[in-house]
């Protein structure tokens, strides 16, 4: 049979395709619906938090931070309750990470505050002596992309039926209407911050990346 296959490339390729598809079909498909269920009563992220998640992705925080607390006493002591599948049901993509150069962040919102994050993002070794994390000063100057975050919320609502409620409509008008709510959320975060650049931007109706990021951090509980 093998000799025959080796002279018939079409069937050879077909044989490879069949042999390599098994694993994915058997491992991924059966539990797909089950694994996609959210926890009861869980709410999707606000637009500001989504914008913060996108900052997290843009600056690739997951290169050094995980969001997956494993069911060991040493981890639950350090980070809080172990992670549940349903908690991630609205995360597209998942941001578990694969390396902990820094600590896990899945429940960081339980034990760090806005002003802690502000000071830390400006100068990590000052807050945590010995830290090798770089400062993310540019997040205090770059404007967060709120419109894309809103577009994301509308997309997941329409395509995946993520429960965003009736207000999230397509198009510019709907976004303009929703924007004030996002700015309001941002103001609440910024009220706990000291940085002059942040205050100036908020006063102009703009949201710096760091504010969105902190909103996201605070939502990780």
């Amino acid at each position, binding site marked *: 049979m093998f000799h025959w296959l080796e002279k018939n490339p079409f069937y050879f390729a077909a044989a490879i395709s069949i042999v390599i598809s098994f*694993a994915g079909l058997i*491992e991924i498909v059966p539990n*797909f619906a089950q*694994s996609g269920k959210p926890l009861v009563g869980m709410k999707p992220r606000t637009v500001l938090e989504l914008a913060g998640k996108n900052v997290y992705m843009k600056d690739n925080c997951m290169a050094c931070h995980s969001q997956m607390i494993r069911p060991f006493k040493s981890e639950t002591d350090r980070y809080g309750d172990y992670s549940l599948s349903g908690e991630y049901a609205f995360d597209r993509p998942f941001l578990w990470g694969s390396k902990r150069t820094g600590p896990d962040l899945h429940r960081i919102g339980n034990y760090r505050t806005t002003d802690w994050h502000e000071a830390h993002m400006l100068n990590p070794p000052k807050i945590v002596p*010995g830290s090798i994390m770089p400062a993310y000063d540019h997040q205090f100057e770059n404007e967060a992309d709120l419109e894309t975050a809103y577009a994301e919320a509308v997309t997941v609502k329409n*395509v995946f039926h993520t429960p965003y409620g009736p207000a999230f409509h397509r198009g510019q008008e709907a976004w303009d209407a929703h924007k004030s709510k996002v700015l309001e959320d941002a103001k609440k975060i910024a009220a706990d911050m000291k940085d002059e650049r942040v205050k100036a931007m908020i006063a102009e109706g703009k949201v710096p990346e760091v504010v969105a990021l902190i909103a996201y951090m605070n939502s990780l509980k």
Partner: protein
Amino acid sequence: MQSNAALEYDYSLAKKFTFLTILFGFLGMLVGTLIAAQMAFPELNYLLGEYGTFSRLRPIHTNTVVFGFTVSGIFATWFYLGQRVLKVSMAESKFLMVLGNIQFWLYFIGALLATISLLFGVSSSKEYAQYEWPFDIVVVIIWVLWGVNMMGLIGIRREKALYISVWYYLACFLGIAMLYLFNNMAIPTYFVSGGLGSPLHSVSMYAGTNDALVQWWYGHNAVAFGFTVPIVGMIYYFLPKESGQAIYSYKLSLLSFWGLMFVYLWAGSHHLLWSTVPDWMQTMGSAFSVVLILPSWGSAINMLLTMKGEWNQLTDNPLIKFMVLASTFYMLSTIEGPIQAIRSVNAIAHFTDWIPGHVHDGVLGWVVFMIMASIFHMAPRMFKREIYSKKLMESQFWLQTTAVVLYFTSMWIAGITQGMMWRAVDEYGNLMYSFIDTVTVLHPYYAIRALSGVMYLIGFIMFAYNIYKTMTSGKELTEEPQFRTPMA
């Protein structure tokens, strides 16, 4: 009718992709060395402002070495050995040549743009699949072009039976195509939301635990079909060619090939041990990882036994050294992986530096060594000149071998130290170390790793220089060397 006259093979595409292999190899390793140094000396994060942090640069390192260096190496070797084992010249088909050239330019431009996009933080955040959707489409087009080219060449072949290397290249094409397509399924938000926000942004088709499963089914098997399968294809061609020895066992090749095809893909879920994916999937991933030793070692042992009775070549041909060391590192890496996939070991190893340590003894020792050896073997045949310097090749070999050993030993120690410290408790059961203690303790190992990166990079520059001098001023050859590569 089969003619016995030697064919004139057309190496123009193989040459072009060889240049890209060297270019992307250098860039990828340069960035890799920089980010390794950043972990030891954090001040180095501020060289390029917002664009120079470890977090931004890391995907550039991984994607450049995977999709830049390795994939160019796969293309370069395919456009060289594909013709030879199928006994047909690329020049016989204008269509395939044009297709190949389109593939080359699209790939070159696409790779540069995609790299720039990562620098600006345009990323879908799935590891080794960070490119956003427009770049994904370009990747798919390039891949399909290559597939059509390969199938086309197979279609007009004179040698009816496909040589082992061709099996592996075919599998590489099919496997990556399947994995890449499914993992990168995403919905661009711009179009669904009625033209809001960035047109580049997308959301993954899968969420949470499912997304993780699909991602690591991809992530692990991108390694399988990018870093293992085609590289095995290379060694099946280049080792017999260089040594003049026939492959030791056809049956072992069969077992290893089909075994690898079937087993490899199950192992992806070992990246998710102790996570929220269902337990039975974790167990499957773990068990199949251990089974995976068989086909992996099957190939490696087949290679080593091919050298049976000819081990003297190891002492006087540095190219044989490169290839034998590559298969040895392949064995090391494929026993280390299954060990890490055992649940209790994984509990310590996961999230630590042992994982990059494992990756790098595989890629630096196996993938890069084998690709460089392939290029060393091809260069005199493509450029019709002798290798410029054997001495330089020897020194490069020892420098880089030392570098790999420094890399993985330091990361083993770092990883296990960190894993043990995270879980250490005092006599009352309280955690003994705060997180930062487990970071500062790693400084010496990070420094050693950075040093090993510098050494490896210097070795790669020596390689590039050697190839450049071979092209420009190596002694001209009047006829193609049969086995052993001539070198001055």
